[in-house]
C-alpha cells in the first residue's frame, strides 16, 4: 500500500525540529554531562561542567538557543519506499522549514558563500542526506552542527597495514592537537571503512546514537572504550582547561572497504549535541 504525504506537512515539522534542537538539549547528553561532573578531578573542570548544565537549563526555560552558533542545518531523511510525496519537492520543503524555523526561533543565520562570505540570510541551503528504506514512513532527523567542532573533523585514508592500532594513534594524535578548540566535552563520531565520502558520512551518523547506549558490535564497543580512555587520559578536560572529561563518548560505525584502503572519518561534536527527529 502506498501512503501519500503532502510536503506541506514537512515544512512545520522541520521548523519545529530546528527550534527544539537548539533550545532543548537531549536528556542523554544532560545525563552524560552530569556523570562527567561526578567523575571530574579538576575543580575548574567541575565548574565548567556546572556552567554548561546551567546553560542548558536556562536555554530550555527561557526558550533561547543554548549556543549562539545555531549551526548548519543537517538532515538525515529516511524515505519509506511505500511513501508517495506530493505537492512539490521534498528538498524545497525541508529548506522552507529551515527558513521558517531559523526566523521564528530567533536562531543565527550562519551560512555564507565560501569566497565572498556573503550570508544567504536564512540559514539555507540545508545539507540533506537521503536513505530509501522499507515501510511507509518518512523519518526526518535534524542536527544543528556548529562550526567550531566541525572544523576539527577530518577524513584520512589510512593504509590497511595501519590496522586497529594505527587508527587509535591517529585519533589520539588529532585529539591532542585540537585541545580546547572543539568546545569539549565532545562526542567523537568515527566512520571506519567504506570509501572517502562513506567514512565521513558514517562518522556524522555515528554521533546521532544516544550517549550511554552501547555499540551492538562487541569489538567496536571495546574499541570505543579504548579510544575514550586514551583521549580522556590526555588531560585536556572540559573546555581544554585541564581535567578528565574531554570526550563524553566515542561512537563508531563500520563498513566494508576496498582491499587497498582503510578510510577513516572523524567527526567532532561539541557538548551542544543538538539533534532531534520526527516521524511522519
Amino acid at each position: 500500500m502506498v501512503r501519500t504525504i503532502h510536503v506541506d506537512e514537512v515544512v512545520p515539522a522541520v521548523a519545529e525540529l530546528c527550534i527544539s534542537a537548539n533550545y532543548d538539549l537531549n536528556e542523554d547528553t544532560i545525563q552524560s554531562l552530569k556523570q562527567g561532573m561526578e567523575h571530574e578531578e579538576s575543580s575548574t573542570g567541575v565548574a565548567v561542567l556546572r556552567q554548561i548544565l546551567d546553560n542548558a537549563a536556562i536555554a530550555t526555560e527561557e526558550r533561547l538557543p543554548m549556543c549562539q552558533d545555531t549551526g548548519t542545518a543537517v538532515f538525515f531523511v529516511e524515505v519509506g519506499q511505500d511513501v508517495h510525496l506530493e505537492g512539490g519537492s521534498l528538498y524545497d520543503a525541508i529548506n522552507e522549514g529551515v527558513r521558517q524555523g531559523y526566523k521564528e526561533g530567533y536562531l543565527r543565520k550562519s551560512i555564507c558563500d565560501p569566497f565572498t562570505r556573503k550570508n544567504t540570510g536564512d540559514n539555507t541551503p540545508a545539507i540533506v542526506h537521503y536513505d530509501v528504506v522499507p515501510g511507509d514512513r518518512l523519518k526526518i532527523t535534524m542536527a544543528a552542527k556548529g562550526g567550531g567542532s566541525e572544523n576539527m573533523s577530518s577524513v584520512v585514508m589510512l593504509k590497511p597495514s595501519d590496522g586497529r592500532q594505527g587508527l587509535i594513534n591517529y585519533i589520539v594524535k588529532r585529539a591532542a592537537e585540537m585541545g580546547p578548540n572543539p568546545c569539549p566535552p565532545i562526542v567523537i563520531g568515527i566512520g571506519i571503512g567504506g570509501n572517502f565520502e562513506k567514512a565521513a558520512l558514517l562518522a556524522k551518523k555515528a554521533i546521532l546514537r544516544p550517549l550511554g547506549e552501547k555499540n551492538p558490535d562487541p569489538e567496536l564497543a571495546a574499541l570505543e572504550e579504548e579510544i575514550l580512555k586514551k583521549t580522556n587520559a590526555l588531560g585536556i578536560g572540559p573546555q581544554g582547561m585541564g581535567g578528565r572529561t574531554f570526550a563524553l563518548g566515542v561512537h563508531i560505525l563500520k563498513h566494508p572497504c576496498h582491499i587497498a584502503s582503510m578510510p577513516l572519518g572523524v567527526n567532532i561534536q561539541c557538548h551542544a549535541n543538538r539533534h532531534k527527529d520526527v516521524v511522519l
Partner: protein
Amino acid sequence: MSEPIRLTTPLSRKDVEALKIGDQVLLNGVILTGRDAAHKRMVEMLDRGEKLPVSVDGQVIYYVGPTPAKPGAVIGSAGPTTSNRMDAYAHRLMELGLRGMIGKGSRGRNVIEAMQKHGCVYFAAIGGAGALLARSIKESSVLAWPDLGTEAIHRLVVQDFPVVVINDVRGNDLYQEGRKEFDLTAKTIV
C-alpha cells in the same frame, strides 16, 4: 579554585599585569564585540592609515556573533567563538592599547608574544554557554558597521561577566599548564 576577581573596564596595564592564568574574573562595564569580518575591516583601515571608528585603548574585545534578540530582550544567545581566526589581526589592536580579548580555544605563538610585549591578556568564556552568558549582558548597541549584522562591532554593558585567564602577560598558557596537570599519557603516547 580561587575566589573570582572583579574588574571594571577600561583596564590599565597594571590591571592586566596583576592577572595570572587560571584566575576567574568577573568583568563589569563596557566591552566591545568583533569577530572575523570586523577584524578584517579594522586592519584594512589601519593599513590605509585611517582611524578606527572605535577606540580600543584600554578596551576588551569579545569574539562573539550573537543570535538575534527576541522582542524585549537585550541580546540573544552570546557565547564566544573560536579565537584563532583572529590571530592574524590581534597584534594590530594590541599596538593601539587593547588590554583584553575574550574567546575560546588556543592562540598562536605570535599572539602570545604580542600580549607579553603590549600588556594584554586573553580570557576564555565557556564555549557553548551562550544562554548563560547572555544573562550577564545588560545593554547592547551597534557602534560600527551595522551592515555586518551579527558581526558588527557592538558595545555591550556587562555585569559580572564570567571569564577565565588563559594567557597572561608573562607568556603562560592555561591550556598547556592545565592539561599537564592531568595528563596521564606523557610517557606512553605520542
